[in-house]
């Protein structure tokens, strides 16, 4: 009896499934890379605004210390003046804010989401 066996040869190259998985991985890696780059830029931009806000508040404190006396109106006036002279005033979404709570005067640079970018408080 002559038995003929047939050996099925493995297909060379990639299957469509392997290709899809590889492309999916590539997309994930590129997305992660892009997200990291965006985060770095976002951190850098925020840090830049934060530095400028701190400089504005520092200038305000320096001018307040030079004056003989100060109150909320004075703090508010100097804060607005320093803010206007800084290039933060050219950026939309930033504004200076000064308010009184209990025995404290708060001066801050507020960012677009309503939260303070930098803040100082004075005891009255």
């Amino acid at each position: 009896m002559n038995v003929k066996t047939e050996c099925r040869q493995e297909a060379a190259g990639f299957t469509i499934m392997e290709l899809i998985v590889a492309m999916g991985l590539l997309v994930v890696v590129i997305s992660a890379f892009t997200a990291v780059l965006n985060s770095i830029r976002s951190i850098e931009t925020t840090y830049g605004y934060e530095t400028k806000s701190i400089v504005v508040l520092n200038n305000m404190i320096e001018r307040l210390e030079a004056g003989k006396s100060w109150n909320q109106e004075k703090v508010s006036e100097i804060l607005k003046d320093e803010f206007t002279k800084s290039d933060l005033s050219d950026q939309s979404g930033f504004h200076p804010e000064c308010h009184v709570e209990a025995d404290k005067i708060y001066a801050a640079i507020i960012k677009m989401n309503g939260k303070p970018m930098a803040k100082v408080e004075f005891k009255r």
Partner: protein
Amino acid sequence: MKTKHGFTLMELLIVVAVTTTVIALTGQLFVEGWTISHGAIRRINDNQMIPIIMKTWQKALRHSPPSSWKIAEESFHAGTTIVKQTGKHLVVITDGKEKHILLPQDSTCKFTIEQTPDMTKCAVMDFNWASHYYRNKKMNHVRFVSCGSNNEKAE
């Protein structure tokens, strides 16, 4: 059963084209990523210098009365202290001792003496520097106010 071995010319061309495109895009992405992150780190470093410059400026004038201030030849004189920009450095000379601070790229310092509405004299250093981005650059400006050692009023 006859099986096919190897690639046809068309398959080979497609594979080469796809591989070249993927490598080129990945390379470009990597270069852009490197440039963007490197630029961002450099701008963060520049920003870190701002509080140092501000502190140096205010400290230099801390013990000087406003009456001793004058601006001559683009340098600020406060008694025995001189503050000036020399190329890439901010130089503070106090009693002959020099302190050099390396400034960010394309920086300029301009000194003025301001009189506030309540007649207080303040020395102002207007500081500009450039932030370099991937394809453009942006100029930044901050001003550092120093009001000296006392509440001396302007005449």
